[in-house]
């Protein structure tokens, strides 16, 4: 049943790689402090 051990390693590999890729992807579109300030102001004042 050694296929299960390899499958587990494969899942682990895919999981970690997918995390690393998503971090690499988010790196570019992380919000800046100015954007967050604007976002918060919009959230507070939207119903006015």
């Amino acid at each position, binding site marked *: 049943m050694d296929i299960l051990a390899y499958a587990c390693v494969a899942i682990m590999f895919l999981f970690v790689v997918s995390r690393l890729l998503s971090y690499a992807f988010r790196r570019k579109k992380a919000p800046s402090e100015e954007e967050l300030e604007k976002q918060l102001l919009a959230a507070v004042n*939207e119903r006015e």
Partner: protein
Amino acid sequence: MTTTKKAVQLPVLERSRRNYDRLRTCRRCGKYTILPGESCPNCGRARLVPVMERARSRARRKMLNEILFTVLLIIIAILLAQDMTQIAIAAGTGLILLALLVLVQRRMTGRETLRQLSRMFRYDHATIHDGLVHDQSTGVETVRSGKDVEGYHILRQTAVLVRNDRLRLALLSLLQNFRLRSDMDLELESLITRDFDPLVADYIGEIARLKRDMIKDRAIRYIIANEPRILEMENGWNILISVASAAVRMKRYVTMYQGFIRRYARFLPRERFVRLYHVVHSDPALQSEVLGQDMESIRAELYPSDPAFEPDAAGAERP
């Protein structure tokens, strides 16, 4: 009018670098507040944390879960392994992947925190809004109970995030009762309303008298845009003269708002007119305008033999 004003000591507003630095959320009930204080205004528990801290712990929790899941997979793989080779492969690959994940996570903590903060603002926008409404009503209640300085300070703290004319006018009507001094921590631009209100005009006039340097484009434009209505005010003429007096401290304002300056040049206090005269005189472009001609005629008419207008007196002028 000045006799009814109250001598007060206004608390200084602690400013933060970013507008969300002072916003806190309750770990227990999830409500938000911008006011300082130990306990949550909603549930009363002392479990308030700055939103930035909350976002950081959420980011860390998420990253920790990723690590735990990877460790779990390593353990399962080792348990399922049939021989030493497989154990070595599972453990080796697992540790390399884990190290890689931890390394990347460490470099991403700052960005992930901002991303979590953005999520909080997006998903909790209604709760944040309600929290600030609650903070404002706390301020209004404090004013109603007679503590107008404390109430003003509370409302002023909410104004870091709440931007509307109603709050601005509430702050201005409170300020109107206080005897303002130049050493007070006052602000101007954030209190200028979208629509005209005599309260704003009065306040701009008062700031122009107390802290001339605070009069900038927005205030000058507001005054110019509402000039006819200000002239109808009891104190309107004084407001306009004060603002014109403040505006002549910079050549840029004189150039940009020439028409306005011209209308009040004749009525400026002598010292401010001297300042304006030298500003216009130092700039050939301004001098060739109608304003330049006005300067000479006003000088000839009001200050015929005043030595302050000689060219060499210019250096002695303060802005």
